[in-house]
């Protein structure tokens, strides 16, 4: 029988050991990415196109392609998320219908990313016959962003006090006018934050776009919607498969570092957007 005091010590040691291990893992991950990435990053690397299957040259088109796809995805997702959130929060009053809507959103959020790729491959690339197209990639990423953007917007709308709505109705505004003048402006921070978080997540996605929107080499600035682009995640994938080549590996770290910097940029933007756009009434 171990005494209570001894158990206390064992337990404390276990949590301390766990903390130590976790901190080591976190430090290793961050350290590896920063150290290896910093070695590979240079202005040339960021602004030159890649050569020799990515093992030489830079990642300019990959950065461009990634930004093109996710920003377009954001533009597609924004109006959908806004409209859907207004409908969910201002029009659906039936609890069961609300539940169903939320369930659909949570469900979409839980779908593995490769499934979105599979879905896009079947529906767009094959059934609609679009071929490899960056725009299809943007549409798929927009779908992936929808739950995040909707949930953030809906929760911002939930934060608007009922008196605002009652006052608007009392002034004779229709439901649409209330939505347009009161609800949407007051919940804009939710939409923007949600979208930016969605963008941060989407830009790192590989599986959804690797079969439908990206090309290995030669892809530059697309001249039509139905052309593939190069992206950072798929570039890293191609380079990671040549791990025996130090030059390729070095560029993979550089591309990873850049990708994470972009993710961090969107996340920080989300953080500041939330602070800046939060309406005075809710600060």
């Amino acid at each position, binding site marked *: 029988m171990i005494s209570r005091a001894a158990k206390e010590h064992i337990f404390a040691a276990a949590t301390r050991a766990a903390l130590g291990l976790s901190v080591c893992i976190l430090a290793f991950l961050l350290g590896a990415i920063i150290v290896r990435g910093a070695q590979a990053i240079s202005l040339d690397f960021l602004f030159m196109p890649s050569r020799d299957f990515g093992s030489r040259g830079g990642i300019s088109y990959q950065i461009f392609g990634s930004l093109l796809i996710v920003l377009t995805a954001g533009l*597609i997702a924004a109006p959908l998320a806004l409209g859907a959130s207004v409908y969910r929060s201002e029009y659906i009053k039936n609890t069961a219908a609300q539940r169903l809507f939320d369930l659909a959103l949570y469900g979409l959020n839980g779908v593995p990313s490769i499934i979105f790729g599979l879905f896009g491959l079947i529906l767009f690339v094959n059934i609609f016959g679009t*071929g490899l197209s960056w725009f299809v990639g943007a549409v798929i990423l927009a779908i992936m962003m929808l739950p995040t953007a909707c949930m953030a917007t809906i929760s911002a709308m939930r934060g608007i006090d009922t008196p605002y709505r009652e006052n608007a109705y009392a002034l004779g505004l229709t439901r649409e006018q209330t939505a347009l003048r009161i609800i949407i402006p007051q919940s*804009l921070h939710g939409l923007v934050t949600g979208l930016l978080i969605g963008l941060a997540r989407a830009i790192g996605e590989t599986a959804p776009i690797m079969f439908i929107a990206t090309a290995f080499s*030669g892809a530059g600035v697309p001249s039509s919607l139905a052309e593939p682009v190069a992206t950072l995640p798929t570039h890293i994938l191609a380079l990671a498969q040549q791990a025996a080549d130090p030059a390729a590996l070095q560029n993979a770290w550089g591309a990873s570092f850049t990708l994470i910097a972009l993710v961090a940029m969107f996340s920080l933007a989300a953080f500041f957007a939330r602070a800046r756009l939060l309406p005075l009434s809710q600060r």
Partner: protein
Amino acid sequence: MRYIFRYGVHVAGVSFAAATILTACGGDGVKTAGDTVSISGSTTVLPAISRAADDYTMQTGAKIIVNAGGSGGGFKQLAEGQTDIGMMSRDITAEERARFARHSFTVTAIGRDAVAPAVSSEIYDAGVTQLSFEQVTDIYMGRVDNWSAFGGPDRAIFAVDKEAGRGTRQVFARIVFGDKNMQAPGADLVVGSNNEEQTALAQSDSAIGMISFAWANADVRPLSITTANGAVAPTLDNVNSGAFPITRDLLIVTREDVSGQAKAFIDFVLSPEGQTHVVDAGYLPVNK
């Protein structure tokens, strides 16, 4: 606020329009993207085509997009009209032709390559420098699992296989195993591209794999083939003379509705200038 909202509607409108256009230009996969040539397929052919494409783009300003994906994928995308040219390191199979019987395909050889059984340098240095087809087959079928059986060190054989759709694998299986679809129960690891195969062989100290000559290096050593007439070394000369048995043509495939731009690029690859890129990639030129 209004502004943002209108903007939203505008974007939605554009999105819908774009989706409609995309759908409309789909159909039976008629490529619409004017002067862009889209190519995908075998990672074996890729280095040659990619180099040629870079050069061609520089000379003419034409846009050529090259994608990896394996011979199977390359054919599939071409047949479905998603690309203009497919790269293959094996022939089109009867099943593939049957599946897309409504199209006719033109196959052009742009170079020649040899696949060799290759081993980790440690094994090669320990004295295993040649194997017969039967011996390689024994390894992949799981009948032999130690290098000592071939005069090597007393170490388990680590057999690296490739994905079934890969051209390299099908050529190797057809010639060495005698059946291109033969599964390899003795395999310990399956990789995709030539790069991955190279990495796996280099990282191991007792591995055997199948690799295109162009990927052989100091860590990954191709073996001579033991035949009734002695050993055939894995050299380009032996490939050229036809003595080395596991060779294949590097192919590009087009559909009957090939675009002029794609045709022009193929002509460039076949020209003496284009063929230098094939040689640079480590392969043998055609027409020589």
